[in-house]
C-alpha cells in the first residue's frame, strides 16, 4: 500500500479510534505521530468544520453555563456592585488575569504529566512548585498594580478614594487572587491527574474548563469580599 493510500485511509478513520496505521506509517515512513494525528483529524475534506464543532460544542456550552452561574451572582448584587467603581473596573482585569494563570498552569501541568514528572503527589515535583511560586508572586504583584490603577480611574469618576476604601480595595484584590489561585491550582492538579489516569489528554479538558472555573470562583469571591468589606 502506497503512503498516499495509507494517508487517505487514515483520514477516514473515526475520531475516537487510535488506528494502528498511525504507528505503522510513523515507523515505516518516519512521519511524526503528531502530523499523522493532525492528518487524521483535519485533513479529510468533509471533516474540518464538523470535527471542530462536534469536539468543541459540549465543553463550550458547559463553560457558558458555569460562567452564567457566576454572572447570576453578580446580577443579584448589581445595585451594590455598581456603587464600588474600583471593583467594577477590577472585575474584567482579575477575570482575565486569573484566567491566564489557569491556562498557563493547565498547559504546563499537562506537559509535566505527559513527561512523567508528576508521579504521586503533584506538589513534590520541583518544576511544578517553581511554576506555582512564579504564578503567585506575579499574581500578587499584578493584583496590587491593578488595584492602584482601578482606584485612580475610579477617583477620576468621582469615587471617594479615602484611606479606608483604598485599603479595602487593595486587600480585596490580594485576597481574591491568592484565594482563587490556590483553590484553582489545587483542583486542577488533582483533576489533571485523574483525567490522565482515565487515559485522556488533560490538555483537551483542563484548558477550556479551567477558565470557566476561574471566572466562577473569581466572581463569587469578589462579590463575597465586596459585601464583607463595603456593606
Amino acid at each position: 500500500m502506497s503512503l498516499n493510500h495509507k494517508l487517505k485511509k487514515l483520514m477516514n478513520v473515526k475520531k475516537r479510534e487510535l488506528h494502528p496505521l498511525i504507528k505503522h506509517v510513523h515507523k515505516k515512513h518516519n512521519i511524526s505521530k503528531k502530523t499523522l494525528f493532525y492528518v487524521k483529524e483535519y485533513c479529510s475534506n468533509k471533516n474540518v468544520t464538523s470535527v471542530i464543532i462536534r469536539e468543541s460544542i459540549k465543553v463550550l456550552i458547559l463553560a457558558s453555563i458555569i460562567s452564567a452561574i457566576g454572572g447570576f451572582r453578580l446580577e443579584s448584587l448589581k445595585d451594590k456592585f455598581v456603587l464600588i467603581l474600583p471593583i467594577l473596573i477590577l472585575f474584567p482585569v482579575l477575570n482575565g488575569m486569573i484566567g491566564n494563570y489557569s491556562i498557563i498552569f493547565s498547559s504546563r501541568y499537562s506537559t509535566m504529566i505527559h513527561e512523567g514528572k508528576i508521579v504521586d503527589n503533584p506538589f513534590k515535583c520541583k518544576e511544578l512548585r517553581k511554576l506555582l511560586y512564579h504564578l503567585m508572586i506575579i499574581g500578587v504583584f499584578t493584583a496590587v498594580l491593578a488595584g492602584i490603577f482601578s482606584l485612580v480611574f475610579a477617583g477620576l469618576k468621582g469615587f471617594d478614594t479615602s484611606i479606608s476604601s483604598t485599603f479595602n480595595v487593595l486587600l480585596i484584590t490580594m485576597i481574591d487572587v491568592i484565594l482563587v489561585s490556590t483553590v484553582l491550582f489545587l483542583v486542577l492538579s488533582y483533576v489533571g491527574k485523574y483525567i490522565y489516569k482515565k487515559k485522556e489528554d488533560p490538555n483537551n479538558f483542563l484548558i477550556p474548563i479551567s477558565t470557566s472555573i476561574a471566572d466562577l470562583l473569581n466572581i463569587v469571591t469578589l462579590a463575597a469580599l465586596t459585601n464583607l468589606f463595603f456593606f
Partner: protein
Amino acid sequence: MGLLFDKEFDEILSGQIIALIAGLISGVFLAFQTDKLLLIPAMLILIPGFLEMRGNIEGSLSSRLSSGLFLKLIKPKLENTEIIKGNIIASFVLSIIISLVLGYIAFIIEYVALGIFYPKIIVIALIAGAISNIIGIIFSVSLTFYLFKKGHDPNNMMGPSITSLGDIISILSLMFVVVFI
C-alpha cells in the same frame, strides 16, 4: 532567589502586564458606561461568559492553526484551503451558537430567578457576538500567520493577546449594540 526570577518569570510577567492593561481598559469602559450597559437586565449574567467566549473559541483556533503551521500542513498565508476555511467557518458557527446559548441562559435566569422578562438580551448577545467574533477571528488568523512568518511560536504569544484584545472588543461591541438597538 536568582533562580526564581529567570527568563520564564519574565515571559509570564510581560504577558500578564499586557493582560492587565487590556483588562483595565475594558474595566474603565464598563465603569464609565454603567448607565448604558450594566443597568440593562441580565447584562451581568451575560458578560462573564461573553468575555470568556473569545479566548475559548479564538484561542483554540489560533492553537489549531499553529499546530498546522508547525507540521507544514498549512502555509502562513490566507489561502482558500479546506483546513483554513473549515477552521474559520467552524469558529464563526461556534461563536454564533455560543452567543445564542449565552443569551438564552441570561434571559431564562433573569426571568426565572429575578422575574424580569427581557428577551432583547438574546438579540444583544447574538449581534454583539457576531460583530466581536468577526473582528476577533480576522485578528487571530492574521496575527498567528504574522507571528509564525516572523519566526515566533504563536502558541506562546496568542493566548494573552487574544484574551486581552478580546475583552476590549467584546465590551465595545456590547456597547455598540446596546446603543444602536
